[in-house]
């Protein structure tokens, strides 16, 4: 019993790390009193407990195995760079191989930029990085239709610091599997 709870917590923690719950969005009109809900508002936010149970029953997933290279989901970029550095190529290759073998899998490549400069221009910089990872994956045989490259610009830094080390951690592409 205790073990299951711990396992569920661990799974929930991992799921929480990799898949932030969809954002609940509430609308407020300018006029007082009227509210409307967006169609995309908070669907599966209460699912941390159930996702742990699902993790128990669905068996081993290499994506969730800390000892598997597929557990690595971030590709980092040098300043002003938009090419995948050699040290990160094995990660991209491993995910490309997994995607080729698992035709039902889909990924979103989330590009990110460091905090310096225009928010909108940083969206474009993050996009360029996500596109670079996508290009490498498709060259490795992954179907273009199962990979979507998008950008968060500087809006979601991994490291909240304001120095070179923090910026290096924030210039990245995160590989997110659908359903995570």
């Amino acid at each position, binding site marked *: 019993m205790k073990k299951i709870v711990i396992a569920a917590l661990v799974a929930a923690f991992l799921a929480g790390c990799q898949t932030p719950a969809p954002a*609940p*969005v509430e609308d407020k*009109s300018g006029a007082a009193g009227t509210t409307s809900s967006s169609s995309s508002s908070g669907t599966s936010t209460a699912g941390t407990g159930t996702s742990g149970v699902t993790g128990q029953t669905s068996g081993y997933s290499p994506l969730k195995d800390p000892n598997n290279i597929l557990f690595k989901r971030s590709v980092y970029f040098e300043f002003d760079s938009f090419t995948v550095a050699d040290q990160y190529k094995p990660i991209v290759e491993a995910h490309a191989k997994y995607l080729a073998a698992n035709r039902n899998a889909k990924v979103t490549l*989330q590009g990110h930029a460091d905090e310096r400069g*225009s928010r909108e221009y940083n969206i*474009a910089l993050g996009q360029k990085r996500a596109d670079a990872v996508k290009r490498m994956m498709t060259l490795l045989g992954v179907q273009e239709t199962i990979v979507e490259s998008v*950008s968060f610009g500087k809006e979601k830094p991994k490291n909240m610091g304001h120095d070179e080390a923090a910026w290096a951690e924030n210039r990245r592409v995160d590989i997110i599997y659908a359903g995570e």
Partner: protein
Amino acid sequence: MHRSLRLVLAAALFLLSFAVRAQLTIEIVGGAGTAIPIAIVPFAGEAAFPLGVSGVVGADLARSGMFRLINTDSVVPRPSRAEEIQSDVWRGRGADAVVVGSMQSLPDGRVEVRFALMDVVKGSLLTAMTYTVTPAQFRATAHKIADVIYQKLTGDPGVFSTRIAYITKAGARYQLQVADADGADPQTVVTSNEPIISPRWAPDGSRLAYVSFEQKKPVVYVQSLATGARQAVANFRGSNSAPAWSPDGRRLAVTLTKDGGSQLYVMNADGSDARRVMSSNAIDTEAHFSTDGSSLLFTSDRGGSPQIYRLNLGSNAVERLTFEGSYNVSPRPLPDGKGFVFVRRDGGRFQIATQDFGTRQMQVLTSGPVDESPSVAPNGKIILYANESGGRGTLAAVSSDGRVKQRLVSAGTDVREPAWGPYAR
């Protein structure tokens, strides 16, 4: 019943929390050397109304940095009509202009607000007006009076009756808010647990376009302020961002990546008929329509570094506008059509600057270090922008001649992405 009660309570708590915490207060950091000395005499009968009008008029004018308020204490009797103003008395106090007025209840519950503006140097009446309003309209009336005074004495239209939009971030909670230009009466338009950026006012002030990441990717929405109804107008594969309204409010320029790379498109405001306006192998983004709608200003790295360009929508000719420095981004046209505001990097400092289309003359307005997202007031005289103070996002404003600087302070929350709304209609 239960549900609606909960909503009302939630709304009440919401409003209360704003009143206590989130309102922006505006401080003058540096003023114009030539501030106009003006005396605003408390209006006759004003004491009967807790909110009053003349205090808001004075606060508006002082906050603009263009006026200096002259003490009106101990002037007895207080004038309330133009003919009661003794010009020599006020000149003796250092005033160039004097505002007097009155407030009187009408039998139907409304209030008659009168004011007069006198040039006491020339001894001439500049204007006198009467408004019949409800007490709920006192603030709006005060802003209108301040607009009239500002225009009479500076020659430019006032923007005290306009509104601003901005994004607040408290923890992981993002809100798009709209407030009066003086920071009063903030209203939340959207709340999300994911970032919101780039709010842009429709030219008639009825809608806001913005970019929300609630679907784990940037999607452009348009939302009505009157009804709260919203629509995803650009939700293509890839990223959708950087909305900008055409001057007639019928079209939006956006940056889409659906066909590869960040490229510029123009579509109808409902999201239909998105057409790519240009093809490049580079980043093209941050488009803004020129004041006359004939061209797009945008940022591109096609020359190797991000610079500002102009696309003529008729001829498709592209012209590079910035050449100084290796990072010039976020162009916004000035309302007079003669130039644009943008962000430049100087060393490691990001600063707000303007540039003239014709002469290419650049003027740096702020010193940075992290100034971004400029937005021009509809009269072209003030530029609102975002920066940081004490590790938090704050808003600031600078006059387009760089002389008056203001800080918009909000306790406790991060504020960013300001957008100045159009003139009230």
